[in-house]
């Protein structure tokens, strides 16, 4: 499977260490459990020979746990020290903000030094440490990509960090690991690890403004987007941030309440990993997000006629 989410398939150095811990603790626990059960069975024999209390208390009660736990502590401390340092020094930084119930992802464009905002997909170059600066804008979330690293909480008003390094290219699924409300279970994302040149090309494309609407259908879709006031929560760079659609008089900037849609067509999924991304699912989502992800903040659009809805979905699909 290409985008498996599994602790048992580590694809990064940190995940490999955690994977090793998992097996040592699981197998070690199982062996000790089996020994205890074996001793219990021996003790329950009819002609069981009593063992001196001193042997039990000093041997099994003190010496055994002290030896085992000390060895375990030494080994796990030594292995933990080999986990990647949680620092932005010498690593590319990406900001990820947890929101109910999606992920805002911000990259720094090396060409213009401006921010490139995307959602629900974290692209990283393979084999390089990437520092994720994590925060949340509403409640506590937690970022977890089991194949690459451990969990890290995202706390409103604070910035926490997590270093990711993927050792092979691939798509790794992650999800929110801290209960955050009704749609916590549908708050997933993908980490896409690309070779450096592909990553650079991808980032350069993401830095471009949205693809122009160059056919009648696409124009109709773009007009529908603006007429429906989607720009109240969503941004399409090159469309919603230029006059006359940019509203300077708006009191609060709400343009980041929903995901940035400048390149929404290039993403694999919509609604934070809920649906595969194509014009059909886009149309269904726009028509009634509440049926797909009940409680989500996006309202349904029951007043769109069929042709307009299809044009709007086609337009969003076109924003590669």
């Amino acid at each position, binding site marked *: 499977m290409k985008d498996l989410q599994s602790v048992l398939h580590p694809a990064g150095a940190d995940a490999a260490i955690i994977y090793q811990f998992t097996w040592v603790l699981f197998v070690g626990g199982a062996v000790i459990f089996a020994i205890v059960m074996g001793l219990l069975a021996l003790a329950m024999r009819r002609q069981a020979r009593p063992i001196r209390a001193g042997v039990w208390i000093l041997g099994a009660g003190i010496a055994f746990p002290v030896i085992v736990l000390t060895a375990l502590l030494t080994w796990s401390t030594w292995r933990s020290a080999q986990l990647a340092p949680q620092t932005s020094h010498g690593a590319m930084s990406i900001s990820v903000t947890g929101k109910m119930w999606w992920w805002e992802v911000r990259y720094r464009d090396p060409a213009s030094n401006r921010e490139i905002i995307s959602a629900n997909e974290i692209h990283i170059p393979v084999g390089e440490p990437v520092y994720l600066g994590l925060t949340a804008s509403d409640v506590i979330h937690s970022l977890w990509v089991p194949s690459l690293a451990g969990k890290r909480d995202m706390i409103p008003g604070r910035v926490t960090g997590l270093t990711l390094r993927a050792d092979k290219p691939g798509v790794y699924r992650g999800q929110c690991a801290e209960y955050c409300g009704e749609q916590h279970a549908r708050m997933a994302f993908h980490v896409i690890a690309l070779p450096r040149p592909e990553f650079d090309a991808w980032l350069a494309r993401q830095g471009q403004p949205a693809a122009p609407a160059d056919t009648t259908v696409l124009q109709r879709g773009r007009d529908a987007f603006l007429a429906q006031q989607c720009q109240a929560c969503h941004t399409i760079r090159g469309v919603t941030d230029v006059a006359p659609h940019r509203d300077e008089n708006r009191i609060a900037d709400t343009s980041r309440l929903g995901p940035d849609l400048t390149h929404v067509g290039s993403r694999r999924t919509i609604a934070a990993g809920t649906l595969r991304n194509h014009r059909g699912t886009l*149309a269904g989502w726009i028509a009634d997000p509440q049926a797909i992800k009940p409680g989500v903040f996006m309202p349904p659009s029951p007043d769109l006629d069929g*042709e307009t809805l299809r044009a709007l979905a086609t337009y969003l699909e076109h924003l590669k």
Partner: protein
Amino acid sequence: MRIKFCQYIRSDPVKRTCSLLLCAVLASACGKADEPTRVEGGDPERGRLLVQQYQCAACHFIPEVQGAGGDAGPSLAYMGRLSYIAGGIPNQPENMIRFLQNPPAVKPGTLMPALGISEAEARHMAAFMYTLQ
């Protein structure tokens, strides 16, 4: 219980024949596999997987298909025995295949977009639709 039943069958050749016949009839009624499909060249199981892959469940409730079970489109629970599809087109395999490939061409104004489904895919999907009774 089982022994009693066997004894009962062994007791009388007429009863035995009748029981065996009854069993055969019941067993054949269970098997859905040999049921002829209404769509020539369509494989319902492949159709079900395609329906899942295209995520039709984003808008439709579809039994046996994983998905959100959205309600932007009608439920497909009884698709196989409806007389008409899309509110007025006779529910015939050929119409269904055409509709799945390009809904707006068959029914202008529909919400359902054309997803670039090939004829062969639409055939499998239609075969699946007729299993929804």
